[in-house]
């Protein structure tokens, strides 16, 4: 069978389309398969989902040509305030304050609503002649041989490429079919996610309260809206999620305090069980995994999508360099470079996120004192504080070119 395109991507969420665009722009033909119908390009209602895009992620979106469409609906994150708090008591006096004016790169990131980000990506995918998008089709079989990867869809049609990429989420069928097992653990916590309207402006400040049951993040959306990510023990979270809207808000309000005035719910409420799942390998012959398919992690600092876009930037760069050298882009020789680049980073991020969560989801008075003092210390040392901010902005580590705002 002849190749349908150079690269097949399974999973049309956010990372899949971003990767398809990056690869198409360096001359590769791509087929993108998604089980969902193509999202409507009409103005969707705000459903409450938003992403904290690190500055590095914003740069990638600008490079692949979709940032302008997202920007008009995005809120720059100008400051981050992190503090230790106890429900009902408000924040402790020790807190970390990160102000973007202390680093030269600009805002540490942006809050973007899911509906605008998704729409901008899909519109660009549909407009790109080198990408073929196939919707409402599931992959039922995949086969790897010496020269390529073939997949069979649920309508019996077959597709073939030099490389198959799984961006199909933490339950990745692409990984499963390739026999790649996963490791991970459950935090016993569930994130409650919603968006709120508030009376007073947020001034572009993101807040993170570290509370005993789990962290609460308030992330500024455009206008007087904020996105709330709130973690509780799974049982408690399920009980809270089952409440009527009014009762749900009654639980949230005291944790939140009154610094934004009156608050009310907009859009839907979501729950996400917090577990860490890492594929035991990110690559195999003619196969690579990106995003949650490679590593599903705790969304404590909105790092899920940001880590996914780092994968996108790294894989697009490795593939493009290989193409320009005349190498076989599906060979393990080439794909191992992507794995080496991303696996260490991912393990480090997962471990840090996990440690931060364990440290802060605790009421042990000694730990509390320790972290209060630690926060005071970080706050008083500008160098350390700038380091944390660059980390939050995604500017540390061996950054793929697209995330540095450069073309490949």
């Amino acid at each position, binding site marked *: 069978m002849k190749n349908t395109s150079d690269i097949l991507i399974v999973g049309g969420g956010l990372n899949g389309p971003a990767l398809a665009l990056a690869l198409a722009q360096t001359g590769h033909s791509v087929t993108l398969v998604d089980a969902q119908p193509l999202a409507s390009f009409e103005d969707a209602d705000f459903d409450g989902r938003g992403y904290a895009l690190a500055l590095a992620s914003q740069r990638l979106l600008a490079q692949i040509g979709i940032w302008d469409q997202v920007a008009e609906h995005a809120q720059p994150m100008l400051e981050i305030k992190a503090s230790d708090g106890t429900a009902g008591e408000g924040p402790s006096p020790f807190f970390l304050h990160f102000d973007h004016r202390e680093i030269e790169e600009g805002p540490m990131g942006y809050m973007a609503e899911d509906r605008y980000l998704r729409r901008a990506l899909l519109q660009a995918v549909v407009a790109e002649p080198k990408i073929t998008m196939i919707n409402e089709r599931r992959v039922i079989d995949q086969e790897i041989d010496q020269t390529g990867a073939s997949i069979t869809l649920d309508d019996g049609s077959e597709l073939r490429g030099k490389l198959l990429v799984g961006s199909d989420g933490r339950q990745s069928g692409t990984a499963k079919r390739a026999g790649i097992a996963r490791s991970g653990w459950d935090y016993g916590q569930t994130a409650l996610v919603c968006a709120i309207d508030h009376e007073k402006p947020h001034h572009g400040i993101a807040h993170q309260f570290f509370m005993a049951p789990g962290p609460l993040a308030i992330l500024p959306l455009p206008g007087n809206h904020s996105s709330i990510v709130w973690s509780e023990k799974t049982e408690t979270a399920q009980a809270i999620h089952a409440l009527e809207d009014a009762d749900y808000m009654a639980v949230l309000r005291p944790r939140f305090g009154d610094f934004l005035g009156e608050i009310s719910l907009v859009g839907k409420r979501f729950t996400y069980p917090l577990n860490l799942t890492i594929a035991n390998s990110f690559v195999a012959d003619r196969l690579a995994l990106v995003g949650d398919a490679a590593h599903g992690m705790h969304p404590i600092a909105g790092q899920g999508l940001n880590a996914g876009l780092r994968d996108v930037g790294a894989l697009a760069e490795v593939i493009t360099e290989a193409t320009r050298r005349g190498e076989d882009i599906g*060979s393990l020789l080439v794909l191992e470079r992507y794995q080496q680049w991303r696996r260490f980073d991912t393990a480090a991020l997962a471990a840090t996120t996990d440690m931060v969560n364990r440290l802060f989801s605790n009421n042990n008075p000694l730990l509390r004192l320790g972290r209060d003092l630690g926060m005071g210390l970080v706050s008083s040392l500008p160098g350390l504080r700038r380091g944390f901010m660059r980390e939050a902005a995604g500017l540390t580590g061996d950054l793929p070119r697209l995330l540095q705002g450069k073309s490949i």
Partner: protein
Amino acid sequence: MQAPQSTVDPSEIAKFEAMAAEWWDPKGKFKPLHMLNPCRLDYITRQIAAEFHRDLTQPEPFKGLRLLDIGCGGGLLCEPMARLGADVTGADAAAGNLPVAQLHAEQSGLKIDYRHTTAEDMAAAGEQFDVVLNMEVVEHVADPLSYLTATYDLLKPGGLEICSTINRNPKSYAMAIFGAEVIMRWLPRGTHEWHKFITPDELVELLSKAGLTPVDRKGFVFNPISWNWSISDRDLSVNYVTSSIKKS
């Protein structure tokens, strides 16, 4: 691309498949070559693109260029060059390598003309190419000047020859023979004879005597911390590469 008809004896295919798998296994016997290959390819592709005004961001940028790889082995350079659109001939004096390379090219859907021959014989037959790749060969030949003269004859006027080899100094002895052959066992013992190694100045002199005009030299440097190779403008102390042209 249309795969050529197999010229490999069917009864030998299993053996050659095993050997091809070995040549192309990134963790196998030829691991050092695979590690060095991206770096070599970066150098080669950039030199060809600069000399023949080709744009590497375009598909098949080397279309229309006739290229010869001397000492092609399993085809580690031939296949990338064919993928970039060049019309590739691979020559090897070791007969055993050729069916292996041929089989792998067929499996990869690439058309490459593999021949069991030497540079001298091809030159005598009057063949000419736009590009001659002469990588890690000159340190193995008995008479470097007559060999390099043959590679000169193999170039069309205005053609480009890329020649890489290993420097001769205590460090290259330590790295290439003691390090790669004895300690790391990356290469079979006896792969290299140190007295045959050539310094960059000696090579440039030999290339000039052969009629070529050397235009560039760079080092390939192994970094044991990051465990990979890079191209260096200054450090030619162990592995190095040169570009020369045949003035038209």
